[in-house]
Structures are given as structure tokens and as C-alpha cells.
């Protein structure tokens, strides 16, 4: 369930149309590391998360990414207003124009339509969270590259804001990593088909190191199930 606020998260007010800039900014809408993929990644992955903190973070970041998608669309929309056929051709926007006029279509800078193949939802919390961290860095690099190419301050300001959000969201992985270690440790010490003595020692060790987390872990049926699944999953 979602609701809409009739405002952008950060203002986008572009005075000068520029189809050349629109052509590259659109990658952060529908490109391989864009905001549409970011939102879909978080919002689809959250169902497999075993911890309440992870469910919360993925829900709220995934929601914020929708607002970022709207900002990118607004930038592209404003950059392509009131263009003449000459501007469209000179700006290299003709290939996009012939397929979409100036409608907003999620594609990469090179023209590849957005695809769910740009992200994963693997059903394994560790795998998914590491993908999220990598995705934030890939998006940050893309914003770096856009800032290297774009001079217009009207476009740069919202892009700088969005870039900083990638930095913060990467760091939100801090908690997710801490939680994941609980699952990860038994997995890496799992030499046999059943929880070995050494793996059991590892769990006991973890319980001593992080009692608050393990309390949570031990008292929740779904978490116990997750840990158990890890053993069975890696049975050879």
C-alpha cells in the first residue's frame, strides 16, 4: 500500500532544455543502475528477509527510490520541453524521439529498455544484501559520471542530492551486514551434512559475542528456520 505526495523530494527546476543532457540522465531512470531498478530490487527482495530491521530498511529505502525515480523523470521531462526539430537532431535526441516523441520511457543512455534482468532477488538474504551494496556503489559511479559531463547547475543540484543518497544507503547496509553474519558464520564452518560440532561451537560463540542479536535469533521460529535452512541448503 502506498500513497502519493504531490511534490518532489528535492526540487527540479530547469530553465534551459537540453536534449543531449536528457539522453544521458535517462540512464538513471531505466539504465542498468538506475532508480527504477533500485526500487524494484529493494521492494522485491524484502519478502525473503528474516530480520525485522532488514524488512524495515528495504521497505523504506525502496520507497525512497520511487521518489528518486520521479526526480529523474522530472529532469528528463524538463530538459526536453519546447524543442525544435533542429535541436532534437543536433542534440542526438532523434533516435529517442522517433520511438517515444518526448514521452518518458525507462531506458539506458545507450537506448536499451529497462529490464528486470538488471537486478536479482535471490531469496538468500546475504546474497541480496551484498547485491544492494554493490548496486548503491554502481549508482553512485553513474552519478559521478553524469556530474563529469553536465555543467548546468539546474541539473547538477538534484543529481548531487541523489548521489549523496547512494552514499547514505550504502552505509545503511551496516546493520544488515551485522545481522547477516549470524547466518553466514555457520554456513562457512559447515563441513558435513548436519550441523557439526564445530559449527555448533560457532553458534555458541556467536551467542556469547552478540547476545542481543542471538536472543532475537533464538526466540523467533522463522529465524531458527533460516539458520537451519542454511545448513541444509549447503549440504553436499
Amino acid at each position, binding site marked *: 500500500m502506498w500513497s502519493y505526495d504531490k511534490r518532489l523530494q528535492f526540487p527540479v527546476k530547469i530553465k534551459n532544455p537540453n536534449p543531449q543532457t536528457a539522453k544521458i540522465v535517462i540512464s538513471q531512470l531505466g539504465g542498468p543502475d538506475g532508480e527504477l531498478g533500485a526500487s524494484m530490487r529493494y521492494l522485491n527482495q524484502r519478502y525473503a528477509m528474516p530480520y525485522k530491521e532488514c524488512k524495515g530498511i528495504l521497505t523504506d529505502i525502496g520507497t525512497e527510490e520511487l521518489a528518486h525515480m520521479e526526480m529523474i523523470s522530472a529532469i528528463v521531462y524538463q530538459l526536453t520541453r519546447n524543442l525544435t526539430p533542429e535541436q532534437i537532431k543536433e542534440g542526438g535526441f532523434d533516435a529517442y524521439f522517433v520511438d517515444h516523441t518526448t514521452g518518458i520511457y525507462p531506458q539506458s543512455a545507450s537506448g536499451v529498455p529497462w529490464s528486470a534482468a538488471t537486478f536479482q532477488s535471490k531469496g538468500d538474504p546475504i546474497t541480496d544484501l551484498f547485491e544492494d551494496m554493490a548496486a548503491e556503489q554502481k549508482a553512485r559511479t553513474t552519478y559521478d559520471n553524469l556530474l563529469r559531463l553536465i555543467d548546468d547547475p539546474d541539473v547538477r543540484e538534484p543529481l548531487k542530492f541523489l548521489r549523496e543518497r547512494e*552514499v547514505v544507503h550504502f552505509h545503511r547496509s551496516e546493520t544488515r*551486514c551485522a545481522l547477516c*553474519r549470524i547466518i553466514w558464520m555457520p554456513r562457512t564452518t559447515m563441513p558435513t551434512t548436519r550441523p557439526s560440532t564445530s559449527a555448533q561451537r560457532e553458534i555458541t560463540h556467536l551467542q556469547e559475542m552478540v547476545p542481543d542479536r542471538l536472543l532475537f535469533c533464538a526466540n523467533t521460529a522463522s529465524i531458527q528456520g533460516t539458520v537451519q535452512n542454511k545448513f541444509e541448503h549447503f549440504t553436499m
Partner: protein
Amino acid sequence: MNKNPQTKESIPAGLLSLAMAFVPTQEFDTPYDPVLAFSRGTIFPALDKPFLGEEAVPAMTDKAKLLGRVRMYDFALVEVIEYLDGHPDNAAALKYYNEMRTAFDKAAAEYEDAFGPLTAREVDTRSGHWTWIDDPWPWEGAED
């Protein structure tokens, strides 16, 4: 040399494992003032890592309009909510959340009194017209 403040040990050595990535625990330090936080894209000074070493600059002082304040407090809320998701018992963050929510509610009410609804559930129907659909829409760049 090699004095990276982030190397401070915040993870018990016994938990450091091969083949895992580790990020230091983030304390809830004194956040930026909401005006500055919004222009920097984060409420956390420790996470303010801009491109090309830009300096923090006070922004929006010349356009301290109602919507700017709504955005600013909403942004502080977005940020602290995501922090609280991972630190659900942090007293300083909980206090900050309450302060920002109060400030947001006030700013949103002032904006809506003057300029109309921010959500479809806040529409004043006394004019006999459904003002929700009135232009401009957010992406049109004329909202403030």
C-alpha cells in the same frame, strides 16, 4: 599517515570473518541543521561525502518558502526513519524523529492552508472543485 578514523574497532574481533565485508557501526552523532542537511543530501555529517570535494554551503536561505520547509523536514524524517530501521532503540534518533515529525506536521499544515493539498486526502472541497488535479504537477518544475 594511514590515520583513517574509520579503522576504529567497532566489530568484535571474534566476529571478523573471511569472505565478508564489514562496515563500522554508525553512532547517531549530532545531525546537520535541517536546512543544511537538505542541501547536503544527508542529516549525518559523517556520511557527507560529496563528489569532487565540494564544501558544505548553506543553501535555500533565499528561498525559505513553505514547500522548502515541508521538503526539509520530510527529508530529515526519511533519513532518520531509515536509520531507526537499523537502530530501533537509539534514544537520540528517537528524540530527533519526534522533533522532526512535529516540525513537519506544522510546515505541511501551513503549506496546505496557503497552497492546497499535498495528498489526495487533504483536499478542501468547499470550493465545489476537485483541486487535487490542478496544475502544476511536481515534475513540471513550477511548484514553488
